[in-house]
């Protein structure tokens, strides 16, 4: 925040090399000037491709969903009836399932990730730091489909036998943990999503914590703060916005996560209060029904769900990036990669 107008990565910014280039005398031959132009044109095309791809995705989604957009309008997002047979499509159950499963994931993952990030950057001995960050990042390397499979064969039996009954007994009065537990359901999906987003939230939080200037910590310690007070006053308070960004990035990932959720959530377009009950998410309805959708309206409705997912995740990601930039801007990115 100290130097608000500093451009990103200013320290050794080769973007400024253009200024040096002008000084170089143009004694190069015509062909090499042509080659320079061609090369610059080529890499410009590559860069433009990135823009074109995103524009293309948006265009295809809008085009593909136009039928359903016209037919249902806003009712698509308020109706809760998903009936492919009669051609009636409302996406509320999927929006509900996506939001609830992501929320459960955040409730579990946020404290864990913050704890891990804090431990790695502020508390643990230097020798453990590398190995712990490697291990948390290893969680991010596991493919979604393997998470799903592990959940089916290991997590669900565990939940059904031990954790579910305990939750029903102690927290059953909330209405969130009632009814029979078939295994798959919102809770299972939330837990598996939580495991999947911990590495993202914790690694970005770590980046943000590292970016907090050292003198903040020293000042707190010099005032006689204990280590925890130093973290609370000197580090966390300064990194608030960035941590919020990290959490929102985790949310963005959870919203769009497909395979693991599809494998465990139960895939039923119902809205139930109990987290034991099966549900359905926006991503998983696409994954399950897209290749079966035979008539055009059905397909178009599924693409419209994709469009909604696309727009929501983009907004969430942009918002989160801005928050993270607010904290890490001005310090060298990725002090520890």
């Amino acid at each position, binding site marked *: 925040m100290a130097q608000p107008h500093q451009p990103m990565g200013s320290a050794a910014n080769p973007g400024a090399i253009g200024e040096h280039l002008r000084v170089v005398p143009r004694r190069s031959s015509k062909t090499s000037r042509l080659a320079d132009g061609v090369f610059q044109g080529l890499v410009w095309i590559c860069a433009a491709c990135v823009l074109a791809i995103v524009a293309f995705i948006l265009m295809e*989604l809008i085009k593909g969903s136009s039928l359903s957009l016209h037919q249902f309008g806003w009712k698509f997002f308020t109706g809760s009836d998903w009936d492919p047979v009669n051609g009636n499509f409302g996406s509320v159950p999927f929006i509900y399932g996506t939001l609830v499963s992501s929320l459960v994931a955040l409730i579990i993952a946020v404290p864990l990730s913050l704890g891990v990030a804090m431990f790695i950057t502020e508390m643990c001995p230097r020798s453990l730091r590398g190995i712990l960050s490697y291990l948390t990042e290893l969680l991010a390397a596991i*493919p*979604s489909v393997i998470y799903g499979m592990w959940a089916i064969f290991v997590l669900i039996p565990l939940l059904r036998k031990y954790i579910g009954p305990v939750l029903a007994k102690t927290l059953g009065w909330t209405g969130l943990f009632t009814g029979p537990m078939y295994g798959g359901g919102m809770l299972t999906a939330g837990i598996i999503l939580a495991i999947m987003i911990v590495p993202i939230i914790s690694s970005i939080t770590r980046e943000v914590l590292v970016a907090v200037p050292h003198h903040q910590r020293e000042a707190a310690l010099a005032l006689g703060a204990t280590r925890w007070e130093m973290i609370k006053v000197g580090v966390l308070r300064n990194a608030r916005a960035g941590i919020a960004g990290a959490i929102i990035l985790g949310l963005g990932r959870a919203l769009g996560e*497909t395979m693991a959720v599809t494998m465990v959530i139960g895939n039923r377009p119902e809205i139930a209060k109990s987290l034991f009950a099966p549900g359905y998410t926006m*991503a998983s309805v696409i994954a399950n029904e897209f290749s079966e959708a035979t008539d055009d309206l059905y397909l178009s409705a599924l693409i419209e769900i994709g469009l909604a*997912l696309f727009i929501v995740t983009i907004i969430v990601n942009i918002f989160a990036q801005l928050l993270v930039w607010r904290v890490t801007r001005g310090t060298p990115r990725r002090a520890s990669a």
Partner: protein
Amino acid sequence: MPETNRTIQWHRRLADKLATALAVICVLLVMLPLAAIFSYLVIRGIASLNLAFFTHIPSGSPGEPGGGMANAIVGSIVILLIGSVIGVPLGVGSGIYLSEYSRGQFGRVVRFTADVLNGVPSIVIGIAVYALLVIRQKHFSALAGGVALGIMMIPTITRSTEEMLRLVPNSIREAALGLGIPQWRSTLSITLRTAMSGVITGVMLAFARVSGETAPLLFTALGNQFWSTKLNQPIAALPLQIYIYALSPYDEWHRLAWAGALVLIVLIVATSASVRWVASRGFAGGAH
């Protein structure tokens, strides 16, 4: 006064210890599923792996013993190759543009868009490629699967290439230009060469990331129970096959799914570990 002082100290010290303990518990709770997943993969996977897994295609009728995933392994390789052919040049190229040529608005927009593309759910990319290729060709194909994975590789490679090129000191570029080398030569043979191990690291990480992707392949590559390496036909892929087998009701297919998962995770972890190793020794020497 000393009385109160001491009680405050006591509270504060307790809070400090408590916070540390909680953080340690968080770390343990996160390590628990990691250990559980890996131990299950190794135990169940090794028990299920055999030579037939690598040499046979799935047996004819569902759940029948025997058979393997040879076609899925080959299919994955084909799709990943197509993806790399598309993703690597585009990603490295736009990374070069962002680091060496971009001044002003356009570069910022591209950088931002790459971050946006990175956050797009993979299933949505699957839909877009379906609309682009599958509908036009009128059938699912290996090519469509490869294109989807290629698109997913681009943002990761773009951003890591840019970051690595930015680490190359300006003096190196100036020295090259001062010798009269045209800028494109200097960029390719001096700047890119200097940052090469870093750029390769980014490429490999992107590769590892997409090699486990299933969602974008669901309605592009589709999967296939038989041998096929044709680019315009549906093709099997390891993650797809694991998905189908894990959800099936047959023990024999579950066995194959565990074996497949082990092979996939070994591939991914080996890639990212070797990348770490290369990056830790290669790049430090190159840039400074």
